[in-house]
């Protein structure tokens, strides 16, 4: 009897202690771009330290799929890597930061530059041999790797490089940014497109596009042709307040700016910690 009373008291006190924490704990559900996932994981962790009651659950199912999740109410927010289209009705797009879609080749490939036209030729199956690109030092067949149609990256690449043409059947598709990087790493004859965050991998080599390097400095000034904004997407009607607070923190705070730079993207609107602060208009 006594042990039962002690047990009950222990359970009640544990419940009482936990409930204040439980009362303010909230999980925000999001989905979308796998390219942005490395940045988002770091930002979620940092924001959780700023506001311990907020946690995040993010599913990287591709930018386009993420927007559709927001439209159908499955996610409270989404992250996409292409600008809004008419089919995104009912959602609000807010710019978060800049990212560059880099073109990567294997580190054994000596190619240093490609024009947008040459790139389009490779990914539509017109140019199929490295011997057509003397700068590469190879004469083998090109193995092109890309993403499938549910990815925001795919839509951006199709619009910005292929000019609306369909990605050729000679491009083997991978389900995520990381798998594209992995495929290029293991195949000396491959070329593919992936986010700026993958540039740190030693097995990959970035290729300049139209003479401009895929580097944060050029992405920030939008000189690099494949610069794109990463967008936060939430429903226009009754968006979640905490999602909007996180968005404001991620796009303007100094701390978030440092995290974004560290992981490899380019902060667009974040205040810097310098003495003379420049307030960017947006």
């Amino acid at each position, binding site marked *: 009897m006594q042990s039962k009373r002690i047990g009950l008291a222990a359970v009640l006190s544990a419940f009482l202690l936990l409930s204040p924490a439980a009362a303010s704990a909230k999980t925000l559900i999001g989905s979308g771009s796998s390219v942005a996932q490395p940045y988002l994981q770091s930002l979620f962790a940092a924001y959780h330290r700023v506001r311990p009651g907020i946690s995040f659950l993010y599913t990287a*199912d*591709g930018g*386009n*799929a993420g927007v*559709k*999740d927001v*439209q*159908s109410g*499955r996610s409270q927010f989404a992250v996409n890597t292409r600008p809004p289209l008419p*089919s995104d009705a009912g959602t609000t797009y807010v710019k978060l930061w800049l990212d560059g879609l880099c073109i990567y080749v294997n580190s054994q490939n000596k190619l240093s530059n490609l024009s947008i036209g040459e790139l389009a030729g490779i990914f539509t*199956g*017109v140019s*199929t*041999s490295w011997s057509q690109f003397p700068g590469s030092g190879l004469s*083998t*067949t*090109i*193995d*092109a*790797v890309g993403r*499938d*149609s*549910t990815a925001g990256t795919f839509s951006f690449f199709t619009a910005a490089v292929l000019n609306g043409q*369909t990605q050729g*059947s*000679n*491009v*083997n*598709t*991978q*389900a995520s940014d990381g*798998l594209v990087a*992995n*495929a290029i790493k*293991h*195949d*000396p*004859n*491959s070329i593919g497109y992936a986010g700026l965050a993958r540039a740190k991998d030693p097995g990959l080599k970035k290729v300049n596009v139209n003479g401009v390097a895929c580097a944060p400095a050029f992405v920030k000034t939008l000189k690099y042709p494949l610069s794109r904004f990463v967008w936060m997407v939430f429903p226009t009607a009754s968006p979640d307040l905490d999602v909007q607070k996180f968005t404001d923190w991620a796009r303007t705070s100094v701390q978030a700016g440092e995290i974004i730079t560290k992981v490899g993207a380019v902060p667009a609107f974040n205040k810097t910690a310098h003495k003379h602060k420049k307030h960017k208009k947006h």
Partner: protein
Amino acid sequence: MDDELLFEQRLHWWSDRRAELTLGAVVCAVLAGVVAMLVFVVVQGWPSFAHNGLAWFGSGGNVDQQIKDMFSAGASGSRDVYTFHAWPLIWSTLLIVGGAVTLSLVSSLFVAVFVVEFAPDWMKQTLHPVVRLLASVPSVIYGLIGVLVIVPFVGNHLITQAEKASVSHIISLSGYSLIAGVMILTVMISPLMIAIFADGLRSVPRHWLEASLALGINRWRTFWKVGVRAARPAIVAGTVLATARALGEAVMLAMVTGSVGFAPNPFDGAIFLFEPSRPLAATILQQVEGLSSAALKHTLFAIASVLLVSAMLLSLAGWAAKQPLKKYAAA
């Protein structure tokens, strides 16, 4: 005294009845669940079949383009967007599953015979738990091994530049291929087959084998002609189970087959083995994020219903194949 005995008897009778009814209810619930799942999947997939008719199973157009159009159309979109011809996906599934099951059947049968009869005792005792362990490895691990080891090996060492160049405008031969998928799938389903075959072989009555040996027939012929023949229902059961597992394999195949809606052409010669493709289950996995698009959702459910019905037909075929074998069976 008599009243007590009668009361106790009634109590035990009631608890037996209770157990019987509970188990019966559970079985009915499971059956109802399976039927409900089948009905749900077929009903959700019906609009895709209704729009395409039997041409759903045929070829025509680029299946990847059709899927992309469905995804772009979103929740709205005209009826035309439902056009879908799944032949490249069906052909890929047939090739990969058929190839893996054939290779696995032959090798697993010999391995099982060896493990049960001809292996020395110490080897038998080691192999038994090893086979069971291999059968329980999650398939995504095979996918990782495939992507990190098998695919680079096939791409960099087995495919020649001439072969790559000959098809370069249409497909990329980069290691993500039919043969990588078949090889890994074979390794994945073999332990299951070995385990079931070995159980079936072990249940052959020893006196049948001893009688054969007593008549002067050598060990190999005895085991093959008497033991394996008697275990044929087990062999059929193992094959059906392994085929069902291979049919449903999505994760690993999505990672190593190249994910292009291309129907490999056997008349291409040696290149045929290195061509990329994408089986049905892997298609569902890769396109599952597009469920919010109505046309794509119905198409994915249509693919799922094809897989479900195939698995059921497989089970039925297995049962039918076992009927004539029952005369000579050990089990």
